[in-house]
């Protein structure tokens, strides 16, 4: 069965500093990987996704992620964090079959941005 591990429960960075959120997955085939962001009281917004091809993917709001098959990782990065980036971030792996699809999420990383 697929699983996702986000080792960091909380991360605090200063505004303008760089950010890296870690994500490790377990999946038996080529994974479909996602990063979502959730602001307080809100649903999930898709930041970026990896299905195939270039292992460095660009997303919205200046985020990028790199797929590393050898490390089973899909870490999220941003070169300069803004105060509005404070939120909870979820990594997910998609399991897609002819019978449908489902996402398996990690437990999330809470990002705090210090001004």
């Amino acid at each position, binding site marked *: 069965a697929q699983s996702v591990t986000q080792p960091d429960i909380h991360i605090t960075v200063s505004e303008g500093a760089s950010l890296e959120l870690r994500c490790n997955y377990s999946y038996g085939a080529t994974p479909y990987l996602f990063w979502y962001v959730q602001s307080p009281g809100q649903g*999930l917004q*898709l930041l970026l996704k990896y299905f195939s091809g270039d292992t460095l993917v660009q997303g919205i709001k200046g985020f990028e992620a790199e797929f590393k098959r050898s490390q089973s990782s899909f870490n999220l990065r941003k070169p300069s964090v803004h105060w509005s980036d404070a939120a909870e971030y*979820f990594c997910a792996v998609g399991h897609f079959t002819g019978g*449908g*699809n*489902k996402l*398996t999420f*990690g*437990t*999330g990383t809470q990002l705090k941005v210090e001004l």
Partner: protein
Amino acid sequence: DAGVTQSPTHLIKTRGQQVTLRCSPKSGHDTVSWYQQALGQGPQFIFQYYEEEERQRGNFPDRFSGHQFPNYSSELNVNALLLGDSALYLCASSFGTDREEYFGPGTRLTVT
């Protein structure tokens, strides 16, 4: 273009009661998935509906059931509520076999 909408926003129920949550998918989408997000946790897949049938199900008891209507909207029903059912319930929609799901704002259910 309306995104995924859910109702109600918040709900308080008593143990043993039954609850129905509603979801309207994004325009053009025909597939609806439901997720449960307990406090401090990531969302967990409950089930997915396509063409008015349950297509896939996660590890949730039969107390959790659903329905999809001809207009693709969906309901999630939970019977015999337990305190542990308190969570944010998220609905997501997609089109056909597209791998990108769009999430609604969720319904916050509190069971007392």
